[in-house]
């Protein structure tokens, strides 16, 4: 237990440079997605057996609250996926000179895709 607390102390003692931030955010989004996937599995199992359950659950999941949660989910998915692609290129193609620039481009791309992806969701949330 003490070691785990120590671990976090060490992590947060680092000056948060861009590379460290990228690593940390990838981990956090990854864990968040694992948690989300567990929820997704259980809920899907719940409504897989009958049409009534399905329609009922989809009704609830189409309410504005869940639409906004989906926007947050979209952000986490986009960031983790695009950052992951960056890591793959970093691992298999030699161009670590440009990593910081590519990370910034990835963040910008995430925001752009998030913006366009959120429009249908917001439209459904409102009307």
């Amino acid at each position, binding site marked *: 237990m003490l*070691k*785990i607390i120590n671990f976090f102390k060490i992590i947060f003692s680092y000056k948060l440079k861009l590379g460290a931030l990228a690593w940390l955010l990838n981990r956090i989004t990854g864990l968040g*997605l694992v948690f989300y996937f567990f929820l997704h599995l259980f809920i899907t199992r719940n409504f897989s057996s009958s049409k009534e359950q399905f329609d009922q659950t989809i009704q609830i999941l*189409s309410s504005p609250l869940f639409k906004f949660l989906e926007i947050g989910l979209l952000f986490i998915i986009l960031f983790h996926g695009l950052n*992951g692609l960056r890591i793959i290129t970093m691992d298999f193609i030699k161009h670590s000179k440009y990593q910081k620039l590519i990370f910034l481009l990835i963040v910008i791309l995430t925001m752009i895709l998030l913006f366009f992806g959120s429009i*249908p969701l917001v439209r459904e949330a409102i009307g």
Partner: protein
Amino acid sequence: MNRKSGILWFLQRVTGFLIVIFLGFHIWIMHYAKGQIELDFNRISARLSYPFWKIYSIIFLTLILFHGLNGVRGVIFDLRIRKQYQTILYLLILVIGIILFIFGLKTIHLWKIQ
């Protein structure tokens, strides 16, 4: 020991890349479906009666479970806890993975046209 970790490292990248493709398609279908086609239980059940879509779903499930739980394994490894506890947690992840896989298989099996 190194070889196993190396393979897991490599598979994390491979599954990650494949998930981008599968998940991109999945999200596109869900959004597109909600916009144009209504989410319909019977339509999904009909699709899942085809072996191709059943296998597609199982592959998708395996990719995600592997990538997610391997990621959790990486986080546990970085915690640098005592070796025995680490091994126990690894086994726990493996067991959870198998349970969730069977859980997912049952879910795919449950869809019957009504």
